[in-house]
């Protein structure tokens, strides 16, 4: 087998793993959209905020330190303690839960029944707001997230696959962190699907996603479900934030994940959990493969910025509801 072909396979494997991460982020969107019809543009910023909070708590930062210093002329930055990772994660989950509650109470409760575009724009406002608050709370410099996750290329995989090629081939280079991320994402996705299918709250969530009125009539509290859904999305955001943050540092570009998830959802349909997964994988592989085969050699590279969108757009023209989305039937 030629080295080029094997490199192609490596690209595909890396693409699959990137795809799992995309799917994870897309899941956060699907959850909220299914339950409330809101497309949450702020999902990416939520991931950033979650990661920032996690790091901030772990390092004992003073929230809003920068602002307090400016107003009162003080010079405080850290409390002086450090919080162990597991406890910090728990606290961050609580913070995201609080965030879900506040967002529901002050914003989305008042927008019930509005058109989707209004809801979408509200989430864009939320994204800006949250980004600003996150920066004010924890500062906007790049942070490193050290959770003790394994990093660097996996020697084990390299050695194992080196035998496949000729003398030029050194084995697949797969980052250990990516493998861990893919594993965590897979576990989370399975967990969410099980939750949705088999628990009481999960069933209630699906009922709300289907029909608000009907759900109300059987006694489900819409507000509770919405807070639940936003909290879940927050947790998913946290995991995504950790994975991406461990890889490339916790910084603003994390919030652009939302923009990556959009083509995934366009492909998979906004309301389908399996769609988010399949869509994520397709985009992950497609992106990397395109860049490898056509982008880098012929188009000067960096095609990953837009390829996913073009792919999704093409798809949509032929199938406007995505792969798994609900057929849009219009009646007069």
């Amino acid at each position: 087998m030629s080295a080029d072909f094997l490199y192609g396979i490596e690209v595909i494997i890396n693409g699959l793993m990137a795809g799992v991460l995309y799917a994870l982020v897309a899941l956060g969107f699907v959850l909220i959209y299914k339950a409330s019809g809101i497309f949450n543009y702020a999902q990416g910023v939520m991931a950033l905020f979650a990661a920032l909070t996690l790091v901030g708590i772990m390092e004992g930062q003073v929230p809003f330190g920068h602002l307090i210093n400016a107003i009162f002329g003080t010079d405080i930055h850290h409390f002086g303690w450090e919080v162990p990772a597991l406890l910090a994660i728990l606290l961050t989950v609580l913070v995201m839960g609080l965030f879900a509650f506040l967002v529901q109470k002050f914003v989305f409760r008042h927008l019930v029944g509005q058109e989707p575009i209004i809801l979408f724009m509200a989430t864009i406002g939320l994204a800006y707001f949250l980004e600003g608050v996150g920066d004010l709370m924890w500062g906007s410099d790049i942070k490193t997230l050290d959770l003790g996750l394994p990093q660097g290329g996996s020697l084990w995989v390299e050695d194992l696959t080196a035998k496949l090629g000729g003398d030029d081939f050194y084995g697949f280079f797969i980052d250990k962190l990516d493998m861990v991320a893919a594993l965590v994402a897979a576990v989370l996705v399975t967990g969410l699907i099980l939750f949705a299918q088999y628990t009481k709250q999960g069933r209630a969530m699906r009922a709300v996603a289907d029909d608000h009125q009907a759900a109300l009539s059987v006694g489900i509290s819409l507000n509770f479900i919405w807070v639940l859904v936003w909290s879940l999305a927050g947790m998913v955001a946290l995991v995504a934030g950790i994975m991406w943050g461990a890889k490339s540092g916790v910084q603003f570009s994390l919030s652009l994940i939302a923009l990556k998830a959009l083509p995934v959802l366009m492909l998979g349909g906004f309301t389908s959990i399996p769609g988010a997964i399949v869509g994520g994988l397709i985009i992950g592989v497609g992106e990397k493969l395109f860049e490898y085969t056509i982008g880098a050699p012929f188009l000067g590279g960096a095609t990953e910025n837009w390829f996913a969108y073009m792919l999704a757009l093409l798809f949509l023209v032929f199938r406007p509801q995505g792969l798994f989305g609900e057929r849009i039937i219009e009646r007069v």
Partner: protein
Amino acid sequence: MLYREAGDFKTSYKSDSQTFPIAFDRYRYWAVMAFAFLVIPFLINDYWASAILLPFLIYSIAAIGLNILVGYCGQVSLGTGGFMAVGAFACYKLMTSFPEVSIIIHIVLSGGITALVGTAFGLPSLRIKGFYLAVATLAAQFFLVWLFNKVSWFYNYSASGQINAPERFVGGFAVTGPNADAWAKYLVCLVFVTVCALISRNLTRGNVGRSWMAIRDMDIAAEIIGVNPLKAKLTAFAVSSFFIGISGALFFSVYLGAVEVGEAFGIQKSFLVLFMIIIGGLGSIFGSFAGAALLVVLPVALKVIGVDFLGWPTDLVAHLQLVVVGALIMFFLVKEPHGLAQYWRLAKEKLRLWPFPY
């Protein structure tokens, strides 16, 4: 008492459908125009021009353009930044390829080129609606930015990828380049704004405008009563892109003088103009101006208060700007989805009855 219609009867349909039916409004309009054209050019200086007036005028054109597409026709677009880039780069290529031709013509042509590009990217709107369309326009946004970055023909093969506006004159006065006076730049932009506003007013009060709004409100019914959806949507994209292209061309040549495509026309720009029309009011030309004004003045005001007055560090103020803008968006959407334009309408309603409460 002052602001009223009593005794002011319209005796023809023509006068009933004029832009400002109430006499007071008409006088106010002419007063503003007189002030803008005859007074400001003598008072303006570089700081006011570059910090407030020029961006306000230029973003107003973009806001009107986007409002036509989103507010009147109901087609959501997140590609405004990319289309402004088309306008800017078209202007640059025209200016450098045909240096003898007047810059005014180049700017109008840039608008035309952008209209063509916009129409092409608007084709998916015939099959895709709502969110999906918004996301599809993101494809346009990212692709265009990548295009102007990668294909060096667009920036005349310069090493940095940046485009610089060569010096050009209108009526003997420099309007681009470092020697251009503030008032000259201001007047050029003002003329374009006035013409664009007049054109959009005419289009939105006639058949084209009604077709757009019909598509927005109920596209199936619109088609059944005779609106050709293809024509309506594509003209919305075309007209909208025309204005946005002009805005981009002015932004580059008159206002900034030099741009790098990634930072000047990225997705942040698309959101900025979208915020302007949400806060200002969808489907309202006045709203486009109001939103542009608020979002141009706000960061400047915050900076002046935060940095100059309170002495806070600039990055802190930048974060605060994000918080305030985000909060404003959410506030307007929750409390007044029709934006500042609605507050204006309500204020006028109250004024019509003043001093009576109802």
